[in-house]
């Protein structure tokens, strides 16, 4: 038994022994800045290889923490390369500009990235432009605009206006309430527990939408995408679904009116008996569409 245990231990540790581990020097340049908030202030962030995290604070201030991180086996190289990443934090009238960039002619031997941790009053509008990174925004109440490329976008607990323009990467949204406009290209998307009105234009993505009772209107135009709509209360919504060469799966037990105005085109409609009802207007072209019941989501 003991021999088996030793053998097992050896087998488990052997792979670790086989992987060569290298010591990497990590040089972190930290930049801190703060501004007293005024009612008309906005925060504009333009990140390149940046992770942007934005949360609300109760201090009526805009607090900015930036870390520029360079990793290289040679410390001197890491120190040299961390300085190649230019960062700008500036206030011009009512706009706070925060940027980082590597000059077009520069290259870094070290692995370089930037992390922004920014807290703002909840009602402060935020505009983010980012590439090859992360944008996470939580619990703001006014306006969030994001233009991202190859980035992971996460929005939680937002109310107000949301405007997203994304290429590649993915979007995760939870407990959103307001008016959202999303234009995405090759971006996978999960929106959970959403309320308000949503206009989504998507191409080449996997799109999952979990509606809640507060969803008033969903207009979705999805090309070459896989679309899944989840609804806890299927029959209380109006459905106007148009599919073009798109296999479709509908929930059972509902009296959908299905017509075929042209070959390969299906129009699927359902109107509830209630006086007022929210609606799904969905068009999917050369993709797949699935509508099904989900479990009810309780808001905190």
């Amino acid at each position, binding site marked *: 038994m003991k021999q088996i245990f030793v053998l097992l231990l050896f087998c488990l540790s052997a792979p670790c022994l086989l992987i060569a581990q290298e*010591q990497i020097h990590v040089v972190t340049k930290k930049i801190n800045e703060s501004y007293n908030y005024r009612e008309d202030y906005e925060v504009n962030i333009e990140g390149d290889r940046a992770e942007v995290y934005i949360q609300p604070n109760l201090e009526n201030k805009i607090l900015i923490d930036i870390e520029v991180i360079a990793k290289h086996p040679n410390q001197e190289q890491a120190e040299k390369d961390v300085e190649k990443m230019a960062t700008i934090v500036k206030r011009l009238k009512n706009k706070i500009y925060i940027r980082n960039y*590597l000059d*077009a002619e520069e290259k870094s031997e070290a692995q370089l990235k930037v992390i922004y941790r920014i807290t703002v009053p909840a009602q402060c509008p935020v505009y983010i432009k980012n590439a090859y990174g992360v944008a996470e925004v939580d619990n703001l109440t006014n306006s969030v605009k994001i233009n991202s490329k190859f980035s992971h976008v996460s929005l939680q607990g937002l109310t107000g206006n949301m405007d997203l323009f994304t290429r590649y990467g993915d979007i995760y949204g939870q407990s959103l309430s307001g008016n959202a406009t999303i234009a995405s290209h090759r971006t996978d998307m999960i929106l959970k527990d959403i309320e308000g009105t949503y206009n989504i234009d998507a191409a080449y993505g996997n799109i999952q939408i979990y509606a809640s009772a507060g969803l008033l209107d969903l207009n979705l135009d999805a090309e070459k995408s896989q679309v899944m709509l989840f609804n806890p209360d299927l029959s209380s919504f109006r459905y106007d679904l148009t599919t073009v060469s798109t296999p479709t799966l509908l929930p059972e037990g509902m009296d959908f009116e299905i017509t075929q105005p042209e070959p390969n085109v299906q129009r699927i409609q359902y109107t509830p008996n209630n006086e007022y009802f929210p609606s799904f207007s969905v068009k999917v072209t050369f993709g797949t569409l699935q509508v099904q019941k989900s479990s009810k989501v309780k808001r905190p």
Partner: protein
Amino acid sequence: MSTEKQNQLIRQAISELPDYQAPEQLWPQISEQLDIDQKERLIQRQLAQLPDYHPPETVWTEIAEGLAKAPPKNTWLRLVRQPLTWAASFLLLFSLYWLVTQSQGPEVSYTYTTQAESQWLLESDWDADEADFAEVVQLHQRYLRTFDDQSAASLQEEFDELNTAREEIKETLDRYGKDQELIRQLAAIERARTQIVNQMAQQI
């Protein structure tokens, strides 16, 4: 004299017309012009190959600052500018004092640590299959020229788009160093490209 006779005389005279020698400097001039034409062709060909240049990043910062400032004031305001400037100076001095005490500019500090990192992160093999891909794409393009197939054209467009995305990420990897997240993104694009190349192979 009959017309026939006249024509005969004319024909005879024509056959006796002398030849003339071209001036000696003519061929060098023609040769020079041919030479110039050849040089012009080389220049025109290369005009299309001239590189583009990237502006420095600071230009956008300056533009943003410029847009934040008000545009030039109207004429009547220029007349009262001097007295207003004097009055504003005092206010400005006071504001500057207030601003300085409010914001001293960003604080900068440095930390130094080490960490262990796995070597297998660093292998760059994403160009290994390019020759095979190129072969399929070339055959598919020939197919497209022959059959003008809409779905085939669509595949080519998708492939071009993914190629552009691939080049963008590779450039970023080159400039910013190798990073797990970027490599994952690149892998996803490679998978999508592979799928398209497989579809192309089925079509041809």
